[in-house]
């Protein structure tokens, strides 16, 4: 199969309006991809912390689910704490 099939659709044929719209669309998709990639990272990291027992069902139990949610919340809290402290340290200079 031809992997470069995209190149035969010429971007320069698009009207300025369509180009703008397409640019906006690409920006949105990039933003979505960035969020999804963070979700992949967090799921992986929190899975290793919260899913510690043997797998016996296809769903999370009453301990695991809140653990996953807390894991995300505390990660963001930690990130905020680091940023805040960094700001403080910068102010001391």
């Amino acid at each position, binding site marked *: *199969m*031809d992997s470069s*099939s*995209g190149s*035969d*659709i*010429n*971007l320069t*044929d*698009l*009207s300025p309006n*369509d180009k703008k*719209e*397409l640019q906006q*669309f*690409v920006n949105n*998709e990039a933003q*979505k*991809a960035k*969020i*999804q*990639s*963070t*979700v*992949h990272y*967090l*799921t*992986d990291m*929190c*899975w*290793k912390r*919260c*899913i510690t027992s*043997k*797998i*016996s*069902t*296809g*769903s*999370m139990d009453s301990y*695991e*689910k809140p653990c*996953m*949610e807390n*894991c*995300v*919340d505390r990660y*963001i809290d930690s990130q*905020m704490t680091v940023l805040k402290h960094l700001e403080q340290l910068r102010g001391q200079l």
Partner: protein
Amino acid sequence: MDSLGNSFGMGGASAQSKKQIWMDKIRQEAAVDQARALIDKVSENCYEKCVPKPGKELSKGETTCINMCMEKYMSAWNTVSRKYIERIQQKDI
């Protein structure tokens, strides 16, 4: 197989559909990336959980474990995604 561009005969396609073709291509590529990332993570984490001592073949128990693990991982992914998006929308960041 005809490429997307060729099969539409780009010379005759309206500007509207050209933009649409780009959007569909980008959307499709994002979906493939997303699926690939998920498959990688599921394989890695479920192999670790379900096949701690690899034998001559995948046992029935290991296969069942992998199937359940996969469902569990996807449900964990959805939980993390919901929580993360909720947090970043709170604007306390």
